[in-house]
Every structure is written in structure tokens, then in C-alpha cells.
């Protein structure tokens, strides 16, 4: 059978309207249970807060004033002047910043739909001891819930905080027994790690993932990874040409710490503003060093024991 091309998302946050239809479509298609007790966070319109075992799309919501907008524009311009990898001639492709503001200069809302990154070098996949996590023919990373024994190593292995074990008591509980409001169906796939599958079941039927299918503004785009990266680069160049130097890509660089991500994002501020790590690095990149150092330490322990029996009376 022929290998299908790598699939991925391009989430263009500059046209996200924060409707959260992606969150709903994801939950419905994947039969994911409700998180918590429908509490309001009080911090913003975001009551979902983060990705988790039962939340595979999460819409971040940030309100910013004049200073934050100016800072974002400056940090974006700094990226351009660093000569960050880009197609064609980087700095010269960007005209002198257009002073005409494309948005209200004193206030803006940032909305961004976050999702599993389906990393090229996936920490969760590397550290999984059972083989429950695997790389699909579409280049995505998926958990087999009938194989996972819930050891939780992948939760610690993800640099983006995406994977979570469903209904455990240590990480943020996603389901509380004895605190139900109304009826709730029994929680499926309890005790095993859960995350976005990039709708593996839909891909097998040549269907678009539920979130991308439902997105009313095409902020979430789905397709072949190479064409997603290409359209992300086109879009960021377009925004730069409009003077929006705050626009930048996240995950489009295959030389980054995770080998580039399958889910590419266009952001309008630094990644940490959206709750994304600024310089993620797959933990297994340093594993050879760790094994070497551990080997030396183990040899030292054996040597200490040998000395102990040689000297010890």
C-alpha cells in the first residue's frame, strides 16, 4: 500500500473568532466526556483553560491593550531582523512597516485554537513503554486506548502539556465522582492516556478532522503537511506586508527542538502569551547523554561496592 502524505493542521489565529465550535465538534465526534462541573474561570471568556484528557481542542482568549500590542509588534519585528528561516529573501521581502494600523491600536483580542502538535520528534511517543502510542501512516501520533496501561510517562514526556491520563487524581481532575450536576454518562477510556488523534478514524475514510470541518472562518485548515506549511508562510508574508509585524509562525521550522510540528500555528504574539512553550525540546534529544552519564554512575556504584568488599573488615 502506498504511504499517504503526512497530514497536519494550519491554525491561523489571525482569523479565529473564538467561537469554540472546534471544541464542541471535537468533543462530539470523539465522545469525550465533560470536564469538571461547568465552572466559570472568571479570568476571560476561556472556561476550558487547557488541553487535557477530554479536551483535544482548546481556544485561548487573551485581551491586550496598547502596550502589549506594541510589544508584540516589536518582538515580531525582531524575529524578522534575526533572519529567521523563511522562504526567499527574508528581510527584504518585508517592506518597511506600514504605519497604518490594521487593527484597533489600543485594544485587541487574541483567540487561538490549540491542539496536539503531532511533533516530528514526539516525546510522548518516544517514552511510551507499552507501544500504545504509535505513528500512523498519516504521520500523526495516536494512542491505542486498549493497549495503554496508564503509566503516565507520556504525560511527563510532552513539552506542550497536551497528553493527560483520564480521570486521575494527581493532575487536574477532569471528572469528579460525587460532585455531579445532573446526569452524566459513565466515563469511557478511564485510566488511560488521551489526546487528539487528528481524527484518525475520519482520516481513514478520507474525511476532514471534525474541528477543521466545523471551523466557520477557516482558521483551522487541514491538509498535507507540506502544503499547510506553505500556506502558513504565504499568510505570514501577507500579514507582514500589511504591517502586522507581530505575525509569526510556530512549529513550521523542521530544525526546532521537536523537528517541527504537524500542527502549525500563525500567532500574533510570543508563544507563551498563548500558553505555548517558547523553546520546546523533545526530552529524548538528550537521552544518549543521560544514558552515558547513568552508565558512568552505575560503574561508579559497582566500583564503590568492590572497594567496600576489598577494604571492609
Amino acid at each position, binding site marked *: 500500500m502506498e504511504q499517504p502524505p503526512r497530514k497536519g493542521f494550519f491554525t491561523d489565529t489571525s482569523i479565529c473568532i473564538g467561537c469554540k465550535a472546534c471544541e464542541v465538534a471535537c468533543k462530539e465526534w470523539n465522545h469525550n466526556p465533560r470536564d469538571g462541573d461547568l465552572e466559570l474561570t472568571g479570568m476571560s471568556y476561556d472556561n476550558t483553560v487547557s488541553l487535557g484528557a477530554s479536551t483535544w481542542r482548546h481556544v485561548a482568549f487573551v485581551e491586550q491593550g496598547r502596550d502589549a500590542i506594541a510589544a508584540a509588534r516589536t518582538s515580531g519585528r525582531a524575529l*524578522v531582523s534575526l533572519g529567521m*528561516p523563511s522562504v526567499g529573501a527574508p528581510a527584504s521581502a518585508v517592506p518597511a512597516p506600514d504605519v497604518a494600523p490594521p487593527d484597533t491600536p489600543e485594544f485587541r483580542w487574541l483567540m487561538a485554537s490549540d491542539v496536539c502538535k503531532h511533533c516530528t520528534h514526539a516525546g510522548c511517543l518516544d517514552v511510551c513503554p507499552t507501544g500504545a502510542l504509535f505513528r500512523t501512516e498519516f504521520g500523526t501520533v495516536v494512542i491505542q486506548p486498549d493497549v495503554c496501561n496508564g503509566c503516565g510517562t507520556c504525560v511527563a514526556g510532552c513539552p506542550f502539556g497536551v497528553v493527560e491520563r483520564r480521570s486521575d487524581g494527581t493532575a487536574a481532575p477532569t471528572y469528579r465522582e460525587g460532585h455531579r450536576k445532573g446526569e452524566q454518562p459513565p466515563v469511557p477510556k478511564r485510566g488511560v492516556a488521551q489526546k487528539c488523534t487528528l481524527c484518525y478514524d475520519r482520516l481513514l475514510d478520507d474525511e476532514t478532522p471534525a474541528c477543521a470541518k466545523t471551523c466557520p472562518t477557516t482558521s483551522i485548515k487541514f491538509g498535507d503537511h507540506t502544503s499547510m506549511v506553505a500556506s502558513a508562510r504565504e499568510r505570514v508574508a501577507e500579514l507582514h506586508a500589511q504591517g502586522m509585524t507581530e505575525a509569526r509562525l510556530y512549529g513550521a521550522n523542521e530544525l526546532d527542538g521537536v523537528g517541527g510540528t504537524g500542527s502549525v500555528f500563525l500567532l500574533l504574539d510570543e508563544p507563551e502569551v498563548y500558553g505555548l512553550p517558547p523553546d520546546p525540546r523533545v526530552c529524548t534529544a538528550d537521552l544518549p547523554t543521560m544514558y552515558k*552519564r547513568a552508565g558512568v554512575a552505575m560503574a561508579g*556504584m559497582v566500583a564503590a561496592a568492590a572497594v567496600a568488599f576489598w577494604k571492609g573488615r
Partner: protein
Amino acid sequence: MVPEAEFTSYYDKPIVKAPPWGHEIPAYLFLGGIAGGSGLLAAGAQLTGRTLLRRNARLSAMAAVGLGGVALVADLGKPSRFYNMLRTFKVTSPMSVGSWILTAFAGGLTVTVGAEVDRLAGARLPLGPLRPVLRALEGPAGIEAAVFAAPLAGYTAVLLADTAVPTWNATHRDLPFVFVSSASLASAGLAMVTTPVSEAGPARVLAVLGVVGDVVAMKAMERRMDPVAAEPLHHGSAGTMLRWSERLAVAGAVGVLAGGRRRPVAVVAGLALMGASALTRFGVFEAGIHSTKDPRYVIEPQRRRLAARRAAGETGDSITTAG
């Protein structure tokens, strides 16, 4: 150089998730260390003809492996599927490598413990014709277990370090030295508790070497870490535990050197050393969990290393790009 931008985050919400591990895991780190160290002591005693130390170290190792195994299984989300740990071998997964180390260690150890129990029972176990086989296998099995003893004591450091948990990951060069030292001093401490001073000489030496290694490795580790990632090792309950761990370890070593040949002193010093090891494991564990709760521990070290690479002219490896 661009001045350090002000620290921002998404409403102070965590970026990475804490692994869903309860206190079973640090308990296992402690018990696995005791098992590994005891396995080495048992093999040494076997090779140098120290019968009591050999027996006691083997039984200690077995008890520690048994309890540790129970703790590991209890901590799984699906304990009934624990055997899936052995459905594959993945060198990229320290959890997988460790499962095989634990299995290999326990395999050899079980044979030696079988022989010890049979001896304790006055050769009354219903072994029949298998008794000579058991006796013949006992020696090689003890050596086989010893081969996997140091790996059992050390792999857990890689297990913690090979994660996105900021504090654990930042320890990745030096935590193995802390853990094998902690395993050495704890298993030696237990041997000093269980075994008469006449046979516990090697345990006394190993205890002192372990304490020296533990204190030195811990200091070196803290100095080498990113200062922000190292913070949780000094603050809160983790900081308290690690401070007491060092005090108990040093006190134990002083006790061994001053009066280790007197049994009551040896017992107290041995208990102090075991306490020190337990506190090291729980302290390092807690510090890591704490470092996942505040996005600062993710963002600040990452921004710092990114800025350092940019300052050095390396601009091609950032996850954020202009195009």
C-alpha cells in the same frame, strides 16, 4: 543584546502537565535503590564468603523489589494491564528499559532467595530432585542479579530526567550520580541494621562512600542547573526534605565512622541513612511536580537558552519563525 522581556504567561496557567504519579513513585525510587544496592552487597558477600550478609542482603533486596513492584503496579491507571510493560522493548523509553531491568534483576534474585529460604527452613521445602538444581543455580543467579543491580539503582534517574518536567529535565547530567549514591547509602544502611557488625564491614565502607557521593553529586547538580529550574529543590516541602536528607546522610556517615562497630550505633546510623535516601527521593520527586505547576519554570529557562543561542548567532533552530 536584546534586554530580557518581561515574563508573560497565559493567566499563570501551567504549560506542561505533571505526570499523574502518586507517592508510590518516590517510594519505588527508594525501594528500587535499596534493592539494587542490596543486590550488589549480596553478590559481594557471596564472593567473599560472608554468609549472614549474603542472606540478609538477598532477603532485603527481595522485600524491596516486591514492595516496589506493588507500588509501581498500584500507580498505573490500569493496574490489570501492568504486563503490557513487557510487550515490547524500547530503548527510547526509560520506563520500558527499566521494566526489563527490574524483571531481569528479580529473576536472578528469586532463585537466590529460594535457596536462602530453603536453607532457613532446614532443607524442608518440597523441592525433591530440584534441590541440587537450585543449589547449582544459586551462585550464577546471584551474579546475574548483580549485573542488573546498579542499572536498577540508576535507571530511575533517567526515567525522571527524560521528561518535559522542568526541574527533573534540568538534572539530567547529574541525577544518576545522586541516585546511585543514595541507593548505596540506603542499602548499606539496611545491611548495617540487619547484619552483625562482624560481617557488615563492607556495608560500612559503602555507606560512607555513598554519603560522600550523595553530598558531592547533589551540590554539583544544583550548581550546574538553570537557576530557575533549580529553585524548587530549595523551596517548600521539597527543600525541607532535601535539607534534612543531607543532614541525616552526614549524621549517618559520622555515626558509621565513629561507632559503626558497635551494633546499636550501627543500627541507628543505618536507619538515618535509609531516612536520608527516602527524603532524597521524595524531595526530588516533589520538586519536579512543583516545577510543572508554575509556567515560570518552563518559560524562563527556555527563554534564556533561546536568547543565548540567538546571541551566539544560532537563529535557525527556533520554533518561532518570521516565515
